């Protein structure tokens, strides 16, 4: 187990190094030097050259890459010359709100998808099952922003239950938590993307488990349907969810970007969107690296967690 984790961590490190190399190459191609951002678009070539020399942008690429790596290790993601702040400070400021939105959406999607999948499996091939399967399929094919627009139209503008955008007065994750109506629509929009795929997997996993002997034994012992479903089926059928949550991180990050943009909720996604408009490549590429690290970590944690939860899974 320990050996496995160490080996996986080493592989993850190599992957992250590869990602860093690609990102550095991209950064270099898109924005070789921030000199023009600092000195202005009409700066004299001589001034640019001297600025580059002063800040080390005239060194060979490979040297620059290693100093970039060194900065990364120190969690220094560069400086946003457009927002005049270090990227790490910007991330620190926005990460909490994004994390709250994403985790709340993940939790909500699990709360909906797990019972829904089990219900569908137990009552398979009934009208209800078909209805939800169809609904999931539609939801799965729907871009999250379109769902968001529909929710805004009906729940916010027509019926006025929730505000159409998140209020500017929500500045901390705690405030967001404290005013649930403000974030209800963003959380539901983000959760809906995952509900579709989660409940599909949950349904097929529950179906597989319902066919197992241990369920038949539990029924033969005379346990009630409730006990069979909640004590025996639930725990086993949920195992694939662990892997699925680990794999859903890129989807969540992308959904996060669109949801925050749509509802004007200040988080990492909105920061990324602003940086796209500003051509603020230090912020953009730092966020891409962060996304890649989260993806790698998500896979790793999911693999380890499944082996802890399911003794049949051996890691070696």
């Amino acid at each position, binding site marked *: 187990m320990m050996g496995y984790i160490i080996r996986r961590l080493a592989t993850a490190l190599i992957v992250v190094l590869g990602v860093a190399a690609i990102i550095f190459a*991209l950064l270099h191609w*898109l924005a070789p030097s921030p000199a023009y951002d600092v000195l202005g678009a009409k700066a004299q070539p001589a001034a640019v050259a001297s600025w580059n020399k002063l800040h080390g942008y005239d060194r060979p690429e490979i040297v620059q890459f290693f100093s970039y790596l060194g900065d990364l290790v120190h969690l220094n993601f560069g400086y946003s010359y457009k927002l005049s702040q270090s990227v790490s400070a910007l991330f620190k400021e926005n990460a909490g709100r994004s994390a709250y939105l994403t985790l709340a959406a993940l939790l909500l999607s699990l709360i909906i998808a797990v019972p829904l999948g089990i219900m569908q499996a137990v009552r398979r091939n009934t009208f209800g099952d078909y209805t939800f399967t169809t609904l999931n*399929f539609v939801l799965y094919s*729907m871009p999250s922003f379109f769902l968001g627009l529909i929710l805004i139209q009906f729940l916010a*503008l027509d019926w006025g239950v929730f505000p159409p955008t998140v209020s500017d007065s929500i500045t901390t994750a705690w405030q967001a938590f404290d005013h649930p109506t403000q974030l209800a629509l963003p959380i539901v929009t983000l959760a809906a993307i995952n509900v579709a795929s989660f409940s599909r997997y949950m349904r097929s996993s529950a179906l597989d488990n319902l*066919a197992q002997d241990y369920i038949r034994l539990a029924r033969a012992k005379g346990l009630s349907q409730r006990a069979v479903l909640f004590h025996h089926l639930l725990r086993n059928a949920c195992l694939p969810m662990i892997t699925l949550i680990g794999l859903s991180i890129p989807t969540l990050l992308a959904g996060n970007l669109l949801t925050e943009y749509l509802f004007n909720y200040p988080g990492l996604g909105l920061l*990324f969107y602003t940086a796209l408009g500003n051509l603020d490549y230090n912020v*953009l590429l730092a966020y891409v690296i962060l996304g890649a690290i989260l*993806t790698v970590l998500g896979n790793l944690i999911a693999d380890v967690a499944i082996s802890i939860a399911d003794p049949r899974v051996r890691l070696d």
Partner: protein
Amino acid sequence: MTEPEAPLLEGLGDAAGMPIGAPEGGEVQIIASGWNLALREFFDNKLAVVGLVVIVFFILFCFIGPLFDSTNQTLVNPLNTDLAPGGHYLLGTDEHGFDEFGRIMLGGQTALEIGFFAAAIATVLGTLWGAIAGLAGGLVDGIMMRIVDVLLSIPLLFLVLVLATKYSGTVVRLSLLIGLFSWLIPARLVRGEVLTLRTRDFVSASRVMGANRRRIVLRHLIPNALSVVIVNVTFQVADSILILAYIGFLGFGLQFPSTSWGDMLGGAQNYVTEGYWWLVYPVGGCLVVLVLATNLVGDALRDAFDVRLRRR
């Protein structure tokens, strides 16, 4: 796919009664009831047919439609902006005074072109990459697949968006952008398929007969791995259309006055509060229905190929 309540023997009997011949012992529990299977297959096919019809409809609607209902889609008309549907304009006009119905056709053209073109690029690249890696094995395979691992851990949408800030605006550029970063899944799938295929006798036989690598890859491995590839193409098309919609919605899509459905929704988003529903729901509906149809076809194809594998 399993039918838990059905007794094992009943499943065996039904399956054995079918014309395609009895499955091997270990696979019995998958095919529980011949009736059910036939019914399900029928049901799946129907959905696939519906999906296919929808895709063909959209291709005709978007590419042939403008020939019958040609509208001005290049010159902004400030006098005709945001007209409600009715009269001359079937679906009203948008914020530039373009006929919305004609604009949906135009946006559909680019969505379909980019969807299929990007999927084609991704599939060709991924198939070759996976086939070569799987066949070469050893260090080459290791290096090639680690490259795939690295690229796969970078969230696709972010990478594409960052590049779209500099490299976007036309159909070809967007197709290349999406296609060049989504070949990783097909590469993995094909490699896995090749790894199982390369140990088969017919590959050894052709190698003994003196076939070179190129021939083995092009004539034996790729054709046999084709089922996996075909299934993946359909999902690839759906994903490419969605990614394009995301890019367009965020405003980094095609150069005005060209458009795609995502661009249109991005523009319409500002008018939701005004109640201009015709700028939101028809486009969004088309997008969802097309992606849904493509996914349906993909699902049905996968099931069809799975069934064939089971019966072998």
